[in-house]
């Protein structure tokens, strides 16, 4: 009995395997118009309506399962899209930053042409660090000695005067901003031509004071204050003339010397690209400066006239 069962089982298996192989060989070997293909097509013709009916009947089931799948997929897509948004946002910020830098460079180029800054061998630099305190009195730039930057070189941007180089390394330099108490810039009021020294206002590092103006100097609110092209001392920086510094906001007449409050034009909180005027030291203007400083007292009319130690006229052009 057991042998019979085993034999029958094996025979059934062998039969089915052989049948499958015959089907496979015949189907694979025949042309598309062959008998088995025709049977398949006939089966399909018969079954198609049933399949269609089943398809329609099962559509809600499919949709329901699909809904779950779609929900999971949508969650995955949402996460992916969030990551993409983050990535694009970062890219946008980088692009905006680049655009901003580009505009600054364009403006610098415009300022170059307007003031003939190119005579001072300007070196474009990027601000890489800002002083962490609220006074923003120093920034660090990415150009240094290797690019020809020296101590006391004037630093400008597209809006106007920024400050001067205080310390220099081979590939970086520290710039002291015009809002630092150690900086004094010889300046003049654009319209009247009255000259004085621009220094930060005590107690308000974001505001400047144009001091030592002659008592009869005229100044109006909104007038521009620009560099005069002179130096206040032999060691000071010789800023090229006519670089915008700020706008007059108010006039003080209390003391013997008149002074005016000046709001700086350059946004010193958001510096990005600046230019260092590297030829201001050792170039013609600074040579003139040294020459003027070496002259005996009294031979320099401006120094005695204004009492401001104005040493020489700048420009060199």
């Amino acid at each position, binding site marked *: 009995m057991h042998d019979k*069962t085993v034999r*029958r*089982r094996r025979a*059934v*298996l062998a039969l*089915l*395997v052989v*049948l*499958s*192989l*015959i*089907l*496979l*060989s*015949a*189907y*694979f070997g025949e042309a598309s118009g062959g008998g*088995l293909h025709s*049977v*398949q097509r006939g*089966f*399909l013709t018969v*079954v198609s309506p*049933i*399949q269609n009916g*089943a*398809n329609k009947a*099962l559509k809600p*089931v*499919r949709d329901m*399962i*699909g809904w779950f*799948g779609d929900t999971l997929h949508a969650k995955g897509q949402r996460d992916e899209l969030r990551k993409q948004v983050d990535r694009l946002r970062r890219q946008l910020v980088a692009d905006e930053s680049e655009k901003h830098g580009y505009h600054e460079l364009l403006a610098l180029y415009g300022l170059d042409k307007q003031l003939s800054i190119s005579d001072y061998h300007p070196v474009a630099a990027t601000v890489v660090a800002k002083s962490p305190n609220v006074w923003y009195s120093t920034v660090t730039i990415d150009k240094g000695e290797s690019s020809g930057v020296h101590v006391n070189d004037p630093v400008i941007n597209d809006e106007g005067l920024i400050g001067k180089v205080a310390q220099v390394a081979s590939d970086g330099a520290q710039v002291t901003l015009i809002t630092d108490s150690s900086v004094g810039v010889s300046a003049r009021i654009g319209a009247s031509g009255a000259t004085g020294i621009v220094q930060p206002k005590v107690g308000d590092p974001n505001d400047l004071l144009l001091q030592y103006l002659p008592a009869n100097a005229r100044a109006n609110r909104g007038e521009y204050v620009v560099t005069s092209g002179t130096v206040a001392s032999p060691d000071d920086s010789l800023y090229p003339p006519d670089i915008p510094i700020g706008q007059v906001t108010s006039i003080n007449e209390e003391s013997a010397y008149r002074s005016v409050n000046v709001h700086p034009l350059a946004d010193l909180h958001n510096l990005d690209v600046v230019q260092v005027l590297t030829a201001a030291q050792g170039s013609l203007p600074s040579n003139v400066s040294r020459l003027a400083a070496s002259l005996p007292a009294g031979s320099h009319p401006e120094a005695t006239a204004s009492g401001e130690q104005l040493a020489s006229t700048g420009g060199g052009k």
Partner: protein
Amino acid sequence: MSPGFSSAPLLRIALLAIAVVFFQIGVVSEVPLFGVSADLSPLLVAFVGLLCGSTVGAASGFAVGLLVDLALVQTLGVTSLTLTLVGYWAGRLRELRDPQAALTPLLVGAAASGGAMIFYSIVQFLLGVDAPVSLELVRQIVLGVVVDTIVALPMWALVRRSLIGGLPDDPRRRRRRAYTTGGLSPLSRS
């Protein structure tokens, strides 16, 4: 046919096979999970073999395979051959080991699915189907096995529920008989 097997379960198997194949074609194949669709036919055949024995398993494998090949306009005989072997193997497993562990359907389902996919791929390669043996193919097989294993338990419940009662030697009855006729019951041994 297994001893004591009547035509009633065969009819149930046939109806179940038709329903499952159409459900497979109409629904399951259009619902991808992890990028692959579950394949219910090897599970169906393996569970029929596990419940009904090797002969019925092999025969149902052949029939289901033929139905799939006809309905999907595939090379006739490939799926039949594959599922015949799957059904026979599952039936022999039942006849030789009679596994009763709760995880049996999962393991049998995974093995049947993996074996069927690998064998099917080999036959297709032998037939000269132009497809590279790549990591993608391995990934598809592995994911297919995972997905089939996930649906193995519901499929097992469906097949068991559909066939139970009409089986020649229902495992539950067989166990009950074994315990009550002495010798095999753990209680009688103790």
